[in-house]
C-alpha cells in the first residue's frame, strides 16, 4: 500500500504532468496552423492543471497542520512538475498568439 504523502505526490505528478503534456502539444498544434486543436489542448491542459492544483491545496493544508513529515525526493519532484506545468501554460498561450500573428502575416 502506498503511504498517504506518496499518494498525494503521485496524484499531483499525474495531473500536472498530463497538463504539461497538453500545453506542449498545444504549441505543436499552433505551429502547424491547427489553432482549434491548440485551443482544445489548452482547455484539456487547464482541466488537468486545476485537478492538480486541488491536490496541491490539500497538500498545503497538510503542511500547515504539520502533517507533512519528512520532505521526500518525490515531493520535490511533484512540486517541480507543478511549476513546470505552470510555466508551460503561460508559454503555450504566448506561443499560440505568436503563431496566430505569423499566420495572419504570411
Amino acid at each position, binding site marked *: 500500500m*502506498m503511504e498517504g504523502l*506518496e*499518494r498525494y*505526490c*503521485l*496524484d499531483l*505528478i*499525474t*495531473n*500536472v*504532468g*498530463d497538463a*504539461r*503534456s*497538453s500545453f*506542449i*502539444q498545444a504549441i*505543436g498544434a499552433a505551429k502547424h496552423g491547427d489553432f482549434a486543436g491548440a485551443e482544445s489542448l489548452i482547455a484539456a491542459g487547464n482541466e488537468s492543471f486545476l485537478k492538480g492544483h486541488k491536490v496541491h491545496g490539500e497538500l498545503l493544508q497538510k503542511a500547515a497542520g504539520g502533517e507533512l513529515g519528512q520532505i521526500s*525526493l*518525490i515531493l520535490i*519532484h511533484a512540486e517541480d*512538475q507543478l511549476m513546470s506545468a505552470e510555466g508551460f501554460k503561460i508559454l503555450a498561450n504566448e506561443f499560440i498568439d505568436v503563431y496566430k500573428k505569423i499566420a495572419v502575416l504570411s
Partner: protein
Amino acid sequence: MKNILLVCSAGMSTSMLVTKMQESAKEKGIDVMIKAIPQVELNLNLSNADIILLGPQVRFILDQVKASAGKIPVEVIDMTLYGTMNGEKVLMSALEMIGDGK
C-alpha cells in the same frame, strides 16, 4: 523473456510504478523484465524492448518515440492507473499488447 520499458521525464515516478509491477509479476509467477528510464536514455534502451510505456507527463513525446521505436508498440499509461500506481493493471495490459503485436 518479455521486456517492458517505462519512460518518464526523470525516471522517478515510473520507477515507483516499476516496483509495483514487479511485485505483481512475482505474485503471478510471470517472468518479465521491467525497467524505468528517463526520456534522455530512451535510444540506448530501445533495442531489446518489447513494449514502451510513457508516463502521462511525457505524453507529448509520443509521436517522437513512435518514430524512433519502429515496430515496437508505444503506449501512454492510463492517468488513473498511473496516479494510483496500479502496477497489476499496467502490467497485464502491457503483456496483452505485446501478445497482440506478435
